[in-house]
């Protein structure tokens, strides 16, 4: 693309828009040879003019990472919205018979039946296709031999936990026929209370995304209104409002969020996290909007509107803010991952949503205690957080490049 593509160079000469006249002529060998006169119109645009929105979208769509980010976010949103409805499990139903079952289990086959020993020496029977048949009860523990004996009709199943990992004996004979089996009932396993992790994950994503989107929306409203008013009225109003922002931004925000969270802890974690996040993080947005409004308000169309007697609210809302949309969109997109991040962080230090609700952060926090025996319980929510963070970061970067005309190719 050439430098002189400003819309002002658009010609009114009909000949200039004639495609034949604008077609570039490829000269054979010498790149420095002068073109024949009249083959190129200086006034013509080298490509069709595009509206800002269309140019932005097409530029955005040409960034593979950003498109990937959008697809991932859409998929995860669908999963978060519809997943818990379609799941046969609920996020809060506990099943103490099936505690800490991993996604893949090393099962031992004896007499055509499949057995799996959990970390807490409970035995679960599986069918051949990985469905859970039931827990085997009535084990008699022999602490001296470090064994647990189960009566299965006329046979005895023995779990020997002298050496790790524990192994099975069937009628006294070691069971050698073992295989890895997918947990087809709980695809991502169960947690320490026997709750289905996939369902909790989808539910947790729903909570985390909801918190992030609400916080983003509130911050957007407050930030745009605050920054817009401050920049538009400038002068003393601006001075006072920006000093307030200065003070707020010197406050380490995370401390403030923690304080609000402590204060509102009794009203249930979800609401207080939303309030905590949305009352604080508008400061950046206010700064960005104010800076942009300060430059836009000096432009002629604003003076024109004012001369025509348009009210302040209308000038700000209808004439100025639309010019600032680009930076608002980028800042808002970047607010979502930071809200997810802060929510996970708060949940992780024990200030998250109240149990039995799940968010990605609380799931990671709960898993920390059993990291040694059931690491998958941590990896799954951690992976979900990372994927979300990546996706939103990609979208934000892509939007920033797409909305910046200097970067456009």
């Amino acid at each position: 693309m050439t430098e002189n593509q400003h819309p002002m160079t658009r010609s009114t000469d009909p000949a200039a828009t004639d495609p034949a006249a604008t077609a570039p002529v490829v000269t054979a060998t010498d790149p420095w040879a002068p073109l024949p006169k009249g083959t190129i119109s200086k006034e013509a645009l080298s490509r069709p003019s595009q509206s800002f929105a269309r140019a932005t979208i097409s530029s955005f769509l040409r960034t593979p990472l950003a498109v990937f980010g959008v697809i991932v976010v859409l998929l995860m949103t669908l999963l978060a919205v519809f997943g818990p409805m379609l799941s046969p499990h609920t996020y809060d139903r506990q099943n103490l018979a099936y505690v800490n079952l991993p996604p893949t289990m090393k099962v031992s086959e004896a007499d055509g039946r499949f057995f799996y020993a959990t970390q807490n020496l409970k035995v679960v029977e599986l069918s051949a296709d990985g469905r859970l048949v039931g827990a085997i009860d009535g084990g008699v523990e022999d602490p001296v031999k470090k064994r647990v004996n189960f009566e299965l009709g006329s046979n005895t199943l023995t779990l020997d936990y002298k050496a790790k990992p524990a192994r099975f004996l069937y009628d006294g004979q070691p069971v050698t026929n073992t295989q890895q089996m997918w947990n087809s009932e709980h695809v991502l396993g169960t947690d320490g209370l026997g709750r289905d992790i996939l369902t909790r994950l989808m539910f947790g994503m729903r909570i985390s995304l909801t918190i992030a989107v609400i916080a983003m929306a509130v911050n957007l409203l407050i930030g745009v209104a605050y920054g817009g008013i401050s920049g538009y009225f400038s002068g003393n109003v601006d001075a006072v409002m920006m000093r307030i922002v200065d003070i707020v931004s010197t406050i380490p925000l995370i401390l403030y969020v923690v304080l609000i969270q402590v204060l509102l802890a009794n009203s249930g974690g979800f609401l207080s996290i939303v309030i905590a996040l949305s009352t604080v993080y508008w400061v950046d947005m206010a700064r960005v909007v104010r800076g942009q409004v300060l430059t836009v308000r000096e432009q002629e169309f604003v003076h024109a509107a004012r001369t025509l007697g348009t009210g302040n609210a209308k000038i700000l809302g209808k004439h100025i803010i639309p010019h600032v949309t680009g930076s608002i969109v980028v800042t808002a997109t970047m607010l979502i991952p930071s809200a997810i991040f802060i929510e996970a962080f708060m949940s992780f230090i024990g200030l998250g949503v109240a149990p039995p609700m799940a968010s990605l952060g609380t799931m990671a926090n709960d898993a920390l205690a059993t990291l040694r025996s059931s690491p998958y319980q941590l990896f799954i929510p951690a992976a979900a957080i990372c994927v979300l963070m990546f996706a939103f970061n990609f979208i934000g970067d892509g939007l920033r490049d797409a909305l910046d005309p200097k970067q456009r190719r």
Partner: protein
Amino acid sequence: MARYVVKRVLFMFAALLVIATITFFMMHAIPGGPFTSDRNLPPDVEAALRDKYRLDDPILVQYGNYMLGLFRLDFGPSFKYEGMQVNDLIAAGFPVSAQLGLVTMAFALAIALPMGIMAALKNGKWQDVVTMVLATIGVALPSFVIATLLMYVFSLKLGVLPAFGLDSPQAFIMPVIAGAGFALAFIARLVRASLLEELGRDYIRTAKAKGLKPSVIVVKHALRNALIPVLAILGPTLAGLITGSFVIEKIFAIPGLGQQFVNSISNRDYTAIMGVTVFYAAILITMMFLIDILYSLIDPRIRLK
């Protein structure tokens, strides 16, 4: 300059005053008070406790006393630890956190600066791509994810690094890496971007035209200017490192101030929460102030008014 410094100092105090006030009233707005939550105290014991901590005074009197205490750097007694002052808690935790924070910062800079410089010099080559991929990962991965993954691999699976404490030099490795992740990625990206910008400027072309060695051009000319924006973000970054340490200290069971803060939250130890918050805020604000002053001293283009 002097006017600016005075103005900034006044701001610092205003911000601290606001923080202390917000903190105080928030802690007192919590319904039920500190002694009614978990255990059922006999009424006379509770009355004695309330009397001891002067909780029956009018709230403004309590506020006045608290603020007067703050001016004498006295954060009052802890609610949960009998006979402990909040000052004692801070004095016990802060040196540990500061040590960890400084090592983390040094580590982040030691890795990020060469990485960013290399990425800028090899713009578009594989070194650049690798750096940017790593930097994106570092920005997107929460520190607790890095920390727990490191702990799982190196302590639980391989058993080569201690899983908690800060007793030996090896014990620093995981907390420092996990804590530095974000800062490291952020600084590396910034160094790259700003060095690329400087390398495209006219004075670099002049230096090249005069036949200076490439190393001299980069180190003596471009880098000096390129590092100025890096300096500007050191304040907020350090702040981030210190607050990020809540999680790191919790995971690795490091008895620092962050751990103290998290504990006082889960114990609902209101005076400790207030004290640690105000202390944290004071440290962070002072650091940002010092770095801003340093910034203006180094870059003559920035005139502080």
